[in-house]
Structure formats: C-alpha cells, structure tokens
C-alpha cells in the first residue's frame, strides 16, 4: 500500500514538471526512429515546395518577360522575384510543418490506437507535444537544407551567408510562436477529431496573409494589419533582408525579435489555455481515444 502511494506520488511529481527535457527528448527520439525509416520522405518534402513555387516563377516570367518588374521592385524593394520566392518558401515550410506536424501528431496516434498509451506517460502533456514539435523541427531542418541547396543550384542563387546567425535567431523566435499555435491546433484535434478542414483553412489563411509570394504592401490595408500578427510575416521581413541583401541592421533585428517574442507569449498562452480546456472536456466525456 505504501509502495503504491509512493509510486503514485513520484508519478504525480514527474507529471507536474512542465519542462522535462528528458521526456521531450525521449518522445522526439521515438518519433525520429520512425521518421528515419523513410529517408526518401525527408528529401521529397524538401523538393515538393520547389514543384509548388516553380509555377509561380513561370507565371512571373509570363507576365513580366523577366525575373523582375518595375512594380514588384517598387512594392517590395527587391529587384528579382526568384530569390524573394525561394526565401519565402524557406520560411513557409516551417509554418506548414510545425502546425500540421503538431496538429496531426495526436491524430496519427489516435488512428494507430496508441494515443491513450502516449497520454498515460507520467509526464505533462505539454512535454509530449514539445517532443512532437522537436521532431517536426528536425525534419524541417533537413528538408529546408534540401530546398535551399536545390534552389541555389537550379536558379543559380547567391544568398548572403554572413548574416546567418540573426537569421537563425529570427527563425527560432518565429518557431516559438508557431509551437504555441501548434499546441492550440492539437487541442482542437482532441476536441473535433478529424483536423483536415481546420488545418487546411489555417493553411489557406497563412498562405494568403504571409508574404511568401508577394510583398505585404500588395494586400488590402485591413489584411495587412492581420498579416503582422502571424510570426512568419515578421520573421520574413528580417530573413529576406539578411539572406538576399545582407542588410539586416541591429536596430531592425532587435525590433523584429521583440515583435516575435510578444507574439510567442500570446500564442503560447492561447495554445496552453485551449489545449487544457480541450483535454479536460475529452477526459470528462471519455472520448480521448475515439475517432
């Protein structure tokens, strides 16, 4: 009886630990073992974006006759739309994978019948979700290397690498915000089960408002304001300045970083709140492992 109580206490203590790096790493490792069984998938996820944005490049060529246009230069401040698109997609694949990855991870476990066992691990649910996030970050890191490497060869791009450190910091801060959004999505998945339409709508919303293909200034003013509450819009401003022009100043970097930190705090608070509510509701109704 004493042993049981002691064990219960230990489990409770473990579960209460919000940031348990060992648990996060164990979940990441478990997932990476599965992911690395299919290495071709990682290469393909790096190559697919190229197939998706090359039509945009052809379209630009058909409309302007070259890789530039006076209107595009005036609106964006960049002369060539090819590196503009490549860097846009380099950032966009992080959004896609973080939100889809975390949002779908619980659904995958649900479909494989392992969700209940995963949720019974004596650690906080947030650690479990962070484990999935880390998996997505590692996969996207590999895919983004494939994407940028292939684009540099295909389009003879010359990206500036001297400002790579501020670029990495901006992407890291952007990911913090997106992990918050991903946790929010995971809560929605637990609540509504099939996440397909929800995630697709979110994807459409992001791909329209985030300036992946065009400068923000082309959007109507009302949409422009909404665009800046998405971390990717803020990060893209700095990443493009750094990688295309090598002109990211300390002042711009600090102001963008501050903007991203505020967004991260907002999305984490929202994400944790929604996830906890969803979890509480499904535990009460006993539908956590159902479809």
């Amino acid at each position, binding site marked *: 009886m004493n042993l049981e109580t002691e064990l219960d206490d230990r489990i409770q203590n473990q579960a209460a630990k919000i940031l348990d790096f060992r648990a996060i790493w164990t979940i990441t490792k478990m997932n990476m073992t599965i992911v690395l069984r299919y290495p071709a998938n990682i290469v393909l996820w790096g190559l697919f974006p190229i197939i998706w944005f090359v*039509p945009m490049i*052809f379209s630009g*060529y*058909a*409309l302007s006759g070259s890789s530039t246009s006076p209107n*595009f230069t005036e609106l964006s401040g960049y002369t060539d739309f090819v590196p503009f698109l490549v860097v846009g997609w380099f950032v966009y694949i992080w959004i896609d994978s973080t939100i889809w990855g975390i949002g779908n991870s619980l659904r995958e476990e649900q479909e494989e019948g392992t969700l209940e066992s995963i949720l019974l691990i004596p650690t906080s649910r947030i650690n479990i979700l962070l484990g999935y996030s880390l998996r997505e970050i590692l996969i996207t890191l590999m895919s983004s290397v494939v994407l940028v490497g292939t684009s540099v060869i295909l389009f003879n791009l010359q990206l500036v690498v001297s400002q790579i450190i501020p670029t990495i910091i901006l992407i890291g801060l952007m990911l913090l915000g997106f992990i918050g959004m991903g946790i929010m999505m995971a809560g929605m998945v637990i609540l509504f089960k099939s996440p397909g*339409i929800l995630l697709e709508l979110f994807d459409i919303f992001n791909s329209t408002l985030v300036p*992946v293909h065009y400068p923000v200034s082309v959007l109507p003013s009302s949409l422009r304001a909404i665009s800046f509450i998405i971390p990717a819009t803020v990060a893209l401003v700095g990443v493009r300045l750094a990688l295309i022009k090598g002109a990211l100043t300390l002042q711009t970097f600090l102001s963008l970083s501050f903007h991203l930190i505020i967004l991260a705090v907002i999305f984490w608070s929202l994400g944790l709140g929604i996830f906890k509510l969803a979890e509480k509701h499904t535990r009460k109704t006993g539908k956590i492992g159902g479809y």
Partner: protein
Amino acid sequence: MFSTVEKMEKNQITRKTSITNELRAAWSITKKEWIIRASYPLEIIYFALSPFLWMIPVIFFGLSITGGADSTNLAELVGTSDWKTFIILGMVFTNAITMIIYGAGYSFRREQNRGTLESIYVSPISRTTLLSGFTLHYVSFTLISTLIQIIAAIVLFGININALGIAVALLSFGIAITGIQGIVFIFSCFVLKFRRAWITTEIAINFLLFITPAAYPIAVLPTVFQVFSKASPLTWGLTIFRSALMPDLIVSYELFVNLIISTIILFALGWLLFRFIESSIRKTGSLQKF
C-alpha cells in the same frame, strides 16, 4: 453438375451486364458516394470553395508583378493581356482535374479503409464501370465547384467571360475527362498494387500540374517539358476551355484534333494497365491487404 450451375450463373451475369445495366450500376455508385458526402455538409461547402481561396495568392502575386489588369508580355505570348482571366480560368480547369484525379483515383483506397472494397468488387459489374461510377460522382461535384469558382471570380476579381463559348468549353472539358479517366485508371493501379502509393501519385500529379499551362503559357516552359505538355490531353483541353471562354482568344480546329488524339492514347494506356494489374491482384489475392 457443378460446372453447369457455374455456367448458368456466368450466363446470367453476362446477360445482366448490358450497357444499360452498366450505366445503372455506375449511377448507383455515384448516388452512394453522394449520400455519404451529404452526411458532411460542411465538407461540401469547404471543398466547393477552397479551390477559389487557393487562387487568391496567385492573383496577389500577379498584381505585384503587373501593378494592373494588363500584361503586355502575356499579350505577346498568347494574344491576350487580360492576365487575371487567363490565370483564373487556367486554375479553375486544373482544380477540377485535380479534384477528379484525387477523388476517383483514391476511391479504391477509401473503400479499402472502410472495409467494403471486397463487397464492392464482387458485385456483378465490370471494373471499368465501378471506377467510372466513382469518377462520375467527382465529375458532378467538380462541376458544381467550378461554377461556384467562376461566379466568385466574376464578382470578386471582375474577370471577363464569353458566355457564347460555354458549350465549347464544356465539350473540351468532357473530352479531357475521358483522358483523365485514363489517369484515374493508372492511379488506381498504383493504389491496388502498392496500397500506400501516395509518394508515387503525389510526384505524378505534381508533374502533371507542372506541365499543364494553368498560370502561364506553354512557351515559358523549358523545351523538354514542352514536349511532355504537348502530349497531355489536359494541355489541349485547358487551351480550348480558356480560348472558348476568353473574348480575345480563338478556338482552332487543330486544338480539338490534338485533344482527341492525346485523349484516346492516354485512355487506352490507362485502361490496358488497369486490366493487367487488376487481373494480377485477383490472382495473388491481395485485394483487401493494407
């Protein structure tokens, strides 16, 4: 005695498989799919509207390049400077094609997941009819979605449509769908043979969309891709569809000849491959395996 009964049954089945019965069977499958779809009204609204929403980023990109409603470079390449109508009609066509290929191509996989593939497979109708039934469902759904997209594009982006060309556009779409049926046959082969064939099908469909000149004319594609593009019925179907609906463009007789020839070749190839794979699957008994 046993073989006589078997022969009688076979004769009965053969008699039943007249064209009218096959059409009725195809219609029953279409109806069944509509009943399932109608249970999820929100999904109907989403899938009918989402292709239009995906067009918006392309339009904003075009606006950032041209800064207005005309492109002189496009006028030199294809004879019209109205880039918005050119791109939107191209995307409407390819959205419809994608919907049909994905929907019908993965129909066997969906039945497999529902655990109903074997029951459907043993119904006394031809496999071609079976697959055509699924295609017919997606064609009907796609027509509704296409109509919504065109109306939304007219209202929101002010595109110009030549109403007199609707009949020709529908005719080209109809012929192209026969070509698409060839692709659906090929996709179904992949699904039946490899089950989780998503990588192969994704690569194939993305390549197909890449060589189909939806948001750009063939002229901007590298020469090697132009060869593939010209062999695809979708390229000719789309060119006729767009030319018929755009007031500045003309539909020529040669375009129809190219569409019909490429459609016949693709359909025949797909059908033969499907027959071959389907018979090998039945021999090995791996129909219901995941």
